[in-house]
């Protein structure tokens, strides 16, 4: 199954890293959407089918916590799982995210395995036969 994944982070490099990590972790055939803050994410979610949201916490305009509150308060969006990837490693803050309805929490720095294990837990096992993404590879024959 090919997923539609929304990555929300104000850092362009971090969005690229998360996308690359997800491809490495077996989600190469997923359709990726990107947003620089919570407000942009909500705009995308109004127009696109999203299977899972992966969001940072510390962002300008609308942060990750405000985004979770907005999604959970929207009848059409509330069941979409949300994973927070953040530098915040404080237990109190993590509990706040979970209490708000986050399906998972990953602290930076992270490894591809950490993301893969959490996403498999939420979305189900990856079908690796569909995950061959060779769009970035150049082959000379």
């Amino acid at each position: 199954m090919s997923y539609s994944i929304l990555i929300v982070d104000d850092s362009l490099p971090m969005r690229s890293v998360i996308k690359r990590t997800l491809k490495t972790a077996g989600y190469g055939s997923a359709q990726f959407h990107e947003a620089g803050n919570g407000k942009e994410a909500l705009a995308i979610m109004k127009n696109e089918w999203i299977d899972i949201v992966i969001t940072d916490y510390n962002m300008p305009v609308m942060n990750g916590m405000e985004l979770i509150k907005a999604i959970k308060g929207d009848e059409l969006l509330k069941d979409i799982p949300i994973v927070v990837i953040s530098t915040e490693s404080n237990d109190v803050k993590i509990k706040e995210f979970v209490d708000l309805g986050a399906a998972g929490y990953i602290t930076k720095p992270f490894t591809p395995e950490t993301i893969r294990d959490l996403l498999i837990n939420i979305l189900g096992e990856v079908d690796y036969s569909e995950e061959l993404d060779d769009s970035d590879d150049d082959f000379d024959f």
Partner: protein
Amino acid sequence: MKSLMTVMMTSISEVMETMFFLPVEFGEESKAINDRMKEYKPDMACQLKFSGDVSGKITLLIPESLLGEMAENFMGTPKEELTSEHISGTLMEILNMVCGNALGKAESKVPFELAIPEMIDESKIPGSLLFNIIQTPDSVMALNIGMD
């Protein structure tokens, strides 16, 4: 609360090795701008304010050449395709990850709040400000923790 510089060193090692595959060693405290980093100029500088049990700001300097290599490794994008936004974004993300990781380890009574990292003009940093030198295999970085 544990010493901020002690936890910061642990976090720098963790972030550099996990996300950038870059081993680091910690050197002496030095006047970064005037001494050790001079040969690696121009440096790029980033600052992040924090508040909690104690408040202050953390400044990180990385030579542009090293930062380019780090951005390349971090994003998996060839150097020639990297833009200035990629380079400065990588520096801001490094500081964000290091500070978030370190302040989480600092056993503070009040959870730390981090501001958004900001690029600053390296030439405006006072030459008298002391920085801790972080040695990489081919270059150096410098870190200062300033308390309010």
